[in-house]
């Protein structure tokens, strides 16, 4: 039984982590492609159209990866989490079925038009189909986060005698106080990924002295989108999400921040330290007094509950994992703001394309938004443990009763092998597209 649950969780964690590497780029990138196409329509400068077409190729590759790794996510609710699906399907089935009907049809129909229809449609309709792809992908994110938010903060439900959750208020699913902050936070994080990728490829072209006209356009666009999204992801949206956690999941908040004991006269903010679960303290801690209380309640001395106030059986299952995920996300987020701020200053002074160290930093920063997005989601998901539906249904109660550990391990190994292959192919083909670069425009 223990093994079974472990492999079910590993399989979901592995497949969703891999899957989300792709949509986090495509959601943000679709916005930037629409921007390039819009600039082209307004300015009639061919370089904007060429930029849109170049990023469309990267988009199409990522989109295909996102689709093929996305279907296993929907299936796994039933295959590995049958009990959870049976009990909550009447509610989360709504949002998941809506995702299929409203966004997947929209995306898939118009992606074909967007990729192959430029000549058939003309530029204006081509722009419209790009916009509809963007709309579909953001709607998909919205409905997934609506599902996620219900699991974090269940609303609009009743529990029947047989333990089934039944919907009694449809609109509550969409006015859930957890939903909007999480959605905006997540979408901005997705724009961060795409901005850093666009800027990094631009920096690569400038440093390589190849396609440097496009390099400049990509760096400039990436830096502007990146600065705005990096700031907004921290404040106000990140702040709003954290306030939801402290209000509704105080034990999670204590674990995230590494607070083992309630401190009198205000809590310190931990910058570095390793959770020591045996002695219930942080090792090698570096912290600044009272800041956490202020950030959370705008009061230097406000009390923040430590883990000591809660029943250990309600602790998040993996406190150190949660703590590290959260700190990595926040740490990287801070670096993103700093780098984009410096880059924006150089851009304003018209010196950015010659400031080598910033270009190199932009290039090397490419993997880090992916890490920040992933650890952000780990913060959210590990933070919800040991619950599937917060405070109502435990993870131990949700797995499929008849699927044995051996079968799940078999499919987990299969997914690992297959996704390794997919990952290698993806890198190879993305490298090929980037190396080839946009078409050179004849003057």
């Amino acid at each position, binding site marked *: 039984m223990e093994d079974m649950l472990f492999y079910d969780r590993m399989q979901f964690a592995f497949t969703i982590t891999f899957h989300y590497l792709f949509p986090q780029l495509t959601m943000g990138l679709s916005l930037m492609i629409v921007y390039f196409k819009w600039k082209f329509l307004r300015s009639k400068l061919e370089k904007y159209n060429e930029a849109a077409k170049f990023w469309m190729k990267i988009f199409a590759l990522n989109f295909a990866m996102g689709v093929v790794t996305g*279907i296993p996510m929907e299936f796994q609710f039933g*295959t590995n989490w049958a009990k959870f699906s049976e009990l909550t399907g*009447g509610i989360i*089935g709504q949002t998941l*079925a809506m995702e299929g009907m409203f966004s997947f049809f929209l995306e898939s129909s118009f992606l074909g038009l967007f990729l192959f229809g430029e000549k058939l449609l003309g530029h204006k309709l081509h722009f419209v189909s790009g916009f509809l792809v963007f709309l579909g992908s953001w709607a998909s994110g919205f409905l997934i986060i609506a599902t996620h938010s219900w699991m974090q903060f269940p609303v609009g439900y009743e529990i029947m005698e047989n333990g089934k959750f039944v*919907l009694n208020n449809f609109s509550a699913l969409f006015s859930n106080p957890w939903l909007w902050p999480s959605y905006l936070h997540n979408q901005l994080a997705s724009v961060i990924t795409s901005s850093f990728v666009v800027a990094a490829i631009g920096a690569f072209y400038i440093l390589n002295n190849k396609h440097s006209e496009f390099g400049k356009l990509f760096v400039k666009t990436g830096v502007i989108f990146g600065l705005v999204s990096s700031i907004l992801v921290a404040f106000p949206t990140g702040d709003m999400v954290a306030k939801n956690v402290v209000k509704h999941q105080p034990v999670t908040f204590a674990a995230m921040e590494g607070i083992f004991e309630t401190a009198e006269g205000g809590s310190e903010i931990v910058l570095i330290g390793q959770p020591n679960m045996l002695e219930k303290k942080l090792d090698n801690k570096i912290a600044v007094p009272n800041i956490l209380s202020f950030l959370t309640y705008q009061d230097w001395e406000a009390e923040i509950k430590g883990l000591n106030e809660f029943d250990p059986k309600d602790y998040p299952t993996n406190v150190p994992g949660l703590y590290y995920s959260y700190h990595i996300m926040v740490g990287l987020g801070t670096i993103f703001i700093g780098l984009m701020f410096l880059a924006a200053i150089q851009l304003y002074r018209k010196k950015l394309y010659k400031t080598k160290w910033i270009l190199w930093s932009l290039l090397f920063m490419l993997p880090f938004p992916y890490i920040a997005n992933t650890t952000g989601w780990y913060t959210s998901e590990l933070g919800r443990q040991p619950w599937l539906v917060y405070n109502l249904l435990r993870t131990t109660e949700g797995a*499929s009763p008849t699927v044995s550990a051996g079968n799940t391990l078999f*499919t987990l190994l299969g997914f690992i092998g297959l996704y390794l292959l997919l990952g290698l192919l993806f890198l190879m083909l993305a490298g*090929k597209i980037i190396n080839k670069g946009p078409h050179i425009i004849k003057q």
Partner: protein
Amino acid sequence: MELFWYIVLVTMLAVYVILDGYDFGAGIIHLFFAKTEKDKKAITSAIGPFWDANEVWLIAAGGVLFFAFPTLYASSFSGFYLPLIMILWLLIFRAIGLELRGQVHNALWELIWDRAFGVASLLLALFFGVALGNVVRGVNLGMVENGVSTQEAHYFFLPLWNPEFSPQAEHLGIIDWFTLFLGVVSVVALTIHGANWIIYKTNSSLNGKLKKVVFVLNFVLLALVVVSLLSWHIIEPNPFHNFFEHPMLWLFPIITFIGLFGMFKVRTFKKDGMGFLFSSLFLFGGLASTVASIFPKLLPSTNTVNPSLTLFNMAAHEYGLSVGMNWFFIALVLVIVYMVVQYRVFKGKMDDVGYGEH
């Protein structure tokens, strides 16, 4: 209300089979009949802008199943665990076969992804037929051993096969001679269907040959349909019970046979789309007849201890189902609009779209 969602679900699955079915069929044709680069290109161009949207019908049908019949979704997805995960893997290979082939110009690379696309399509057609066979045959709900349930009444698990290989064995497997037989029916039917789509959407030099293939395979299909009707009686002594009770339902078998016999005229059709129309009728009629035959069961029980899963004992709660109707109608109208736009833009022959050469 349950009935409404039941009809929606079955219709969506039928649309999926008709639409993605031609993609699978095109893959099988690609595997066995496409020899020249030009033929291969014609085939992938004919399904290029569509297959992805076609696959969405499976995802959307899965979503509707989850939402309207969550207990059935939970029970069947966990019970058919291994074949479902394998279907996922095959769908991945089909997709990357199509998408990656054109990315590198190298004969070996192209060969690998051609085969990935073809073999995955063939196996998918087979697996979906086997899946239908499992639903018709039923499963040991509650995993009854010696007259006692070892699991909750609606849960089960099937291994891929058991040595007996029989649909009437005490310990069932996913694959037995009956389900495998339906798998073969599915492969033949979808091969014809895919060939009809290629004839409809291309001017390929293959078309003449494909018309012969359709004609010959149609005899095979007719024979297979007759045999499957006979073997059906072994599984279910009285498969036409529902049809005698509600004579209206005979419409579905009639549609099936119109489709089947219509295809014999494939070599004389004036319009290239006629064959596709008839094979679509066949698929729709066949699926609807099967479903009508086991109605109201969704998944029959093979033991006497636990009842079959029906649309009445599986449905979600009333409020959720009725509120779902509102958004479903809006979504449906939108989906139809998208499809009209898509098929209008990519109307006519598709040989020169140049799929996968971005």
